């Protein structure tokens, strides 16, 4: 089957192999960057199908540029907020996506990343690695890079939904006292870990590690603010692998500078891809570029899902995860 396919951003080769096997050659954005809207419009022209990512805006202009022969935009992403689905449906273009529930290991990867941030801040790994590479180490010393114990301390989980629960359950081997803050009780955590549901203020005051896993909503925006940092222990570490705007980043910078808390591990930022200037100068912060799900396992399964659905639509078969299935019947 020879089809005219465009891939807007390089994805895991597990997905690209499927596209190649079923569609023959395909074109792909060769650069490690997001296409501009003009480039996107240019490249989708005349394609039978497009594999796009969640930071491409697929609107009427893009759909019209693709042309009437175009059958599918397969979105590499859980949501379809970047796509004008109604316009696609009108034009008979199927929209597929890669829902979280369909990607085994997706939430586990995020939970693992929260732990990776927690440990690298607690044991000052990034800072100590910079020192080691500078060649300045003159030998072991009893006071060098003293960090925080993890085993036996108190873990505070803000938001005990799917990911928050996985993060908490991962503390089992570390004999931690677990507190959580959520609107509803979480029997799993209470049963398996003896976790205790508390008010946010109590969690902040008593936890050695505070890790955030709430959704971004108007009422969770700046949920962690200047006042929260004052409530936290001065030895405590904050981890945010959820969404940037949940933490007031300016207030965090000040709290870290003043020593109101001991450290922070961040995977997300209020105004990505920028972060509060000044954070980059601090040794007691570890910053990663939104890597929650950045594992070979999770990303290869996402790429496979997106590619399989692209191929399915083009072959006239039923895609697994289509948000406008009424289009498929017409096709």
């Amino acid at each position, binding site marked *: 089957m020879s089809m005219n396919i465009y891939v807007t951003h390089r994805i895991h080769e597990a997905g690209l192999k499927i596209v190649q096997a079923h569609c023959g050659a395909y074109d792909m954005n060769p650069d490690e960057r997001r296409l501009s809207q003009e480039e996107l419009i240019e490249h989708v022209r005349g394609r039978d199908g497009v594999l796009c990512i969640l930071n491409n805006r697929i609107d009427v202009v893009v759909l019209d540029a693709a042309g009437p022969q175009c059958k599918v935009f397969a979105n590499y992403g859980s949501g379809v907020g970047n796509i004008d689905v109604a316009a696609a449906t009108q034009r008979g273009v199927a929209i597929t996506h890669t829902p979280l529930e369909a990607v085994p290991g997706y939430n586990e990867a995020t939970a693992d990343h929260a732990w990776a*941030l927690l440990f690298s801040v607690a*044991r000052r*790994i990034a800072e100590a690695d910079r020192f080691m590479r500078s060649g300045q180490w003159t030998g072991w010393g009893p006071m060098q890079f003293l960090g925080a114990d993890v085993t036996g301390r108190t873990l505070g989980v803000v938001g005990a939904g799917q990911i928050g629960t996985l993060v908490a359950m991962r503390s089992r081997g570390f004999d931690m006292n677990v507190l959580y803050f959520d609107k509803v009780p979480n029997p799993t955590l209470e049963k398996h870990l003896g976790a205790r549901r508390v008010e946010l203020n109590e969690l902040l005051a008593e936890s050695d590690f505070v890790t955030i896993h709430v959704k971004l909503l108007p009422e969770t925006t700046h949920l962690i603010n200047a006042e929260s940092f004052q409530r936290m222990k001065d030895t405590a570490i904050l981890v945010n692998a959820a969404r940037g705007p949940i933490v007031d980043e300016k207030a965090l910078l000040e709290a870290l500078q003043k020593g109101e808390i001991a450290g922070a591990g961040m995977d997300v930022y209020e105004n990505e891809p920028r972060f509060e200037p000044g954070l980059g100068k601090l040794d007691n912060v570890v910053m990663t*570029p939104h890597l929650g799900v950045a594992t*070979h396992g999770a990303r290869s399964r996402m790429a496979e899902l997106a590619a399989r659905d692209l191929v399915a639509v083009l072959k006239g078969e039923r895609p697994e995860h289509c948000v406008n299935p009424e289009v498929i019947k017409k096709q």
Partner: protein
Amino acid sequence: MEMERKVSMSFNVYVTRRIPDAGLEIVEKHCGKYDMNPEDRVLVRDELLEGVRGRDGVLCLLTDTIDADVFEAAGPQCKVFANYAVGSNNIDVEEATRRGIVVTNTPGVLTDATADLAWALLFSMARRIVESDKFMRTGKWTGWGPMQFLGADITGRTLGIVGAGRIGSAMAKKSRGFEMKVLYYDTVPNAELEKALGARRVELDELLAESDFVSVHVPLLPETTHLIDAAALKKMKKTAILINSSRGPVVEEKALREALKNGTIAGAGLDVYEKEPIAEPGLEKLDNVVMIPHLGSATKATRSKMAELAANNLVAALKGETPPNCINPEALKA
């Protein structure tokens, strides 16, 4: 009364390098004043010989070589060398015993901290924390991308423990929440790991071939020197990560550097080195290694506990009591 007590409690004590306050406070309370190396560095030989002269007791570190010359310099009144370390291979214990000098150490308090550190190295290497943090700080990030810094999954993978002693077992048990398959290599079976985790004891070659993460926890012995050499690294998966927080010479560092450069294995987390404080040149240029300066027990709480133990041992010996962690009790009889 007050006078008398002060006099009876006054001992001439030397501390070879600053340790956490928790320990120094005990020394001060029980011994009165003490002298201490004022600089945050190892004493050179002559300074050590000078520093110990005429002392009743010395609190020393793993980095001080304590031999017959040092005991001789200290003098016949010296009762104790309290080592601030889990080991005592820096001290000629036989010679100390012959002279009736008590030697103590600080065992048992650093198991969890050291096992935690092995996990910290595993996590930071698997999820490429150091490398991506360095990138973030350059200010070059232009936004999320599906292929940026892809790392290794941890949950559900296979953890291989080389040496299932105290620290190796602790490392293994901390995997519980991550639903890992655990393999271990040891000269003797570890019933606890088998029961608690369903861990399986295997030959080293099988462990190397099947593990996604290989964590080394054997003691340094002639037969464990270069236990992980070029051949061992070749047996590992290309996607595997090696963690060494035990002793540097257990891993052949040149071979490791080559394996990391050639992609024989995916990454390494190192806390110890063959020739500390020097790491094999070239390692510092690699992104697929995390390297830290021997921080196994480096937490505030652990180091405070070590300092307290060392100080309590010192004080007990000076008072003529049996110290809690005496490694040559026969010296007391002398």
